[in-house]
């Protein structure tokens, strides 16, 4: 699992960490039942405040991707993987549909970005 934190980026540090843990789960690098690094350890690794990591973990817990337990740290949950599987299949469907309609990938990106 690769974690990059850029203080100059627009997203907050906690958002950046949460996004990358999400990606790691989506890519299958973190599997169900696996432990995330302790907040203290990850904070030291990327030189941020421990509460920033805890904020990121809390957000992931709200999304049902991980479970936080006092003394046991953060564990990856199945439900998170399941929803990611769903997202992945939706993305696959999206690309198939775009291909069928002859929409280039770049245009699809623009459509996704402009969708909200």
């Amino acid at each position, binding site marked *: *699992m*690769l974690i990059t934190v850029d203080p*100059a*980026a627009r997203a907050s540090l906690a958002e950046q960490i949460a996004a990358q843990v999400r990606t790691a789960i989506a890519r299958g690098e973190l599997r169900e039942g696996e432990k995330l690094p302790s907040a203290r350890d*990850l904070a030291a690794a990327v*030189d941020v405040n421990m509460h920033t990591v805890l904020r990121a973990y809390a957000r992931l817990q709200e999304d049902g991707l991980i479970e936080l337990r006092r003394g046991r740290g953060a564990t990856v949950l199945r439900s998170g993987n399941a929803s990611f599987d769903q997202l992945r299949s939706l993305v696959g469907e999206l690309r198939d549909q775009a291909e069928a309609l002859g929409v280039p990938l770049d245009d699809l990106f623009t459509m996704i970005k402009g969708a909200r």
Partner: protein
Amino acid sequence: MTTRPMSRATRTAVTAPAAVLLLALLVAAVALGPELPARIAQHFDAAGTANGWGSPWPVFGGALATAVVALGVALAVPRFPDRRTAAMVVLVTELLASVLVVTWILLAVVNRSAEPTLPVAATLVIVPVAVVAGAVPLVALWRTAGPVPRRAVAPLAVPPGARVAWRGRAGSRWFAVLGVLLTVIGVVAAVMVGVGADATGTAVVTGGVSVFVGLTVLVLARVEVTVDRRGLRVTSAVTRLPLMRVPLDQVRSCGWEDVSPGQWGGWGYRFSGRGVAYVSRSGPGLVVETVGGGARLVTVDGAAEAAATLGALLEARAA
């Protein structure tokens, strides 16, 4: 991996020790076997006096089987693409075969007398035989092994001021199985002997050693590999024991290579001429060269990404 073809001399050096051991065993069996009584002295106390007797042939069978296996392995070696791992396997079989063969010949020789004694010093003859039988093929194979290509990786592109960390897992189910097995055997051995009537200290110690080795193997069964601004760390996943630590300012360069266990001295936590290694499988491993000239290796999935991350950290340090 490029392996040079084996010359006739190399092939002889690999097969000769096992062939000589097998021949010596057969000659000894033919020359001394017919005169041996049905029960021979097989166990001796520290003073060299016999205190255990049995048939000579089960030990002979074990020695013969091991010598045949050693010869078979030596003959099969040219088929191994990886000479270093082959050398490890040959080393183990040669050592086992030489210990068993020399033991049987010693027993056969001392049992020619009606009251056999075996001074401890005589058993030392096993050592040079084992060393020669093990070292000759090892060195011969090692010399034909091709160089191991180390792959450099372009450092990860990271925006200036950004911080990067990488984390991976490594481990082996075999270590876990072996660790549990050794621990259980050790506990059972210690308890059974402790309960038994003639409790001897040595069996309890042997059990204790087995438990210790088992637990050590268990510690190695699952590890976490971390690359961040502090450097490289390998930590046992369950116990949190630090297994390897290289601070970033001690790292000179990094890369990855396609590891085969023989290159770094085998499986587990290894010390060899190339450096210190955690080896749980064949395949990609992260290699770090230290400022002091040493090297560290850890076999881990995503070793290339780990090397790229470490490269980016080294670049940031230099800047």
